């Protein structure tokens, strides 16, 4: 077979034409297809929209953290170094004057601003101090100021220094009789 003959047969084989309504069918298919352009455009707005959502999320988190920092703090973190001592002294004087049956919390509970208080202090638990500790600590401070350390802490409760006397214990001896069977065995009386 020559090249010319092959070309002729190939050309004839591919001279096939689509049906007359093929183009009309194509148009119908494309019209029935959902319009792609709007979808593509919405995709182009997707990236800025995502950035906006992320920014809003960050703003909400930052706002929430700022709110966390304004919770009441148990410690007077914004006062000067002398103020805790004065507060303790005030509590000590108050405790000596009263019955001191209820534990008290040192210091006031000021609302700490975010610029003043470190973030870590906001999570510290509230500390309860017993009256004895308050009294002892106050006495220690006043003694230190006067340069005299007391050997024994004064206490209102004298019952702790009393000595209790224990009565003597009388124990009577108990005789335990051996079991009959064991007694017979010890005496050499073997069972039949």
């Amino acid at each position: 077979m020559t090249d010319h003959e092959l070309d002729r047969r190939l050309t004839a084989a591919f001279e096939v034409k689509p049906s007359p309504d093929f183009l009309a069918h194509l148009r119908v298919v494309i019209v029935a297809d959902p319009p792609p352009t709007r979808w593509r455009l919405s995709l182009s707005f997707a990236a800025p929209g995502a950035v906006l959502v992320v920014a809003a999320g960050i703003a909400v988190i930052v706002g929430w953290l700022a709110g966390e920092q304004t919770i009441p703090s148990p410690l007077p973190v914004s006062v000067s170094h002398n103020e805790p001592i004065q507060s303790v002294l005030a509590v000590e004087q108050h405790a000596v004057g009263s019955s001191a049956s209820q534990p008290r919390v040192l210091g006031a509970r000021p609302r700490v601003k975010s610029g003043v208080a470190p973030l870590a202090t906001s999570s510290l638990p509230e500390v309860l101090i017993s009256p004895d500790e308050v009294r002892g600590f106050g006495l220690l401070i006043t003694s230190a100021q006067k340069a005299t350390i007391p050997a024994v802490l004064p206490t209102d409760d004298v019952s702790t220094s009393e000595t209790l006397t224990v009565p003597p214990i009388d124990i009577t001896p108990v005789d335990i009789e051996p079991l009959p069977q064991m007694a017979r065995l010890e005496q050499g009386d073997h069972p039949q």
Partner: protein
Amino acid sequence: MHERAEFLAGSLVKLDEDLDREFEARLVETSTLAFRVAFGVLRHQQDAEDVAQEAFAKAYRSFRQLKDRDRFRAWLVRMTWRTAIDRRRSNRRRGAHEVGAEMMQLTAASGFVATRDPAQDQAAELWAAIDTLPDKLRMVIVLASIEGHDVREVAVLLGIPEGTVKSRLFLARQRLKETLR
């Protein structure tokens, strides 16, 4: 603000209309090409039309993404070819269309059965020979035989070097000549 939104919406509608108009022009220009490419794989009129429609629907959905509109023909040809290959595979899986409906006069058992039309016989013989070619050679010979594409145009359509097209075309023609001898 409202006027601006209206202007934007109007622009978008105009953009859509322009795109639709451009796609319509491409559709008229390349519909027969797509059909013939599909027919070169499937050898079945209705299947080829279905595949061409499917390829055009895909092209329409992605038309906006196509940056270089001059490459639409090559893009469509490759898309049609892939869709046709997929269709042929699924047809073979179903066991249908093993032989094209229009070539049903041929029977595998008795080899080539002559009909009353010599031209039809020649065409059937040629298609049987083309069917023996591997897909790479088949694609080149199909595209070179459609609409008088030369080697350079086939290379552009397939996105491969001209030298590769030349060698594949030579090999394909040699095999066809041997089969049809």
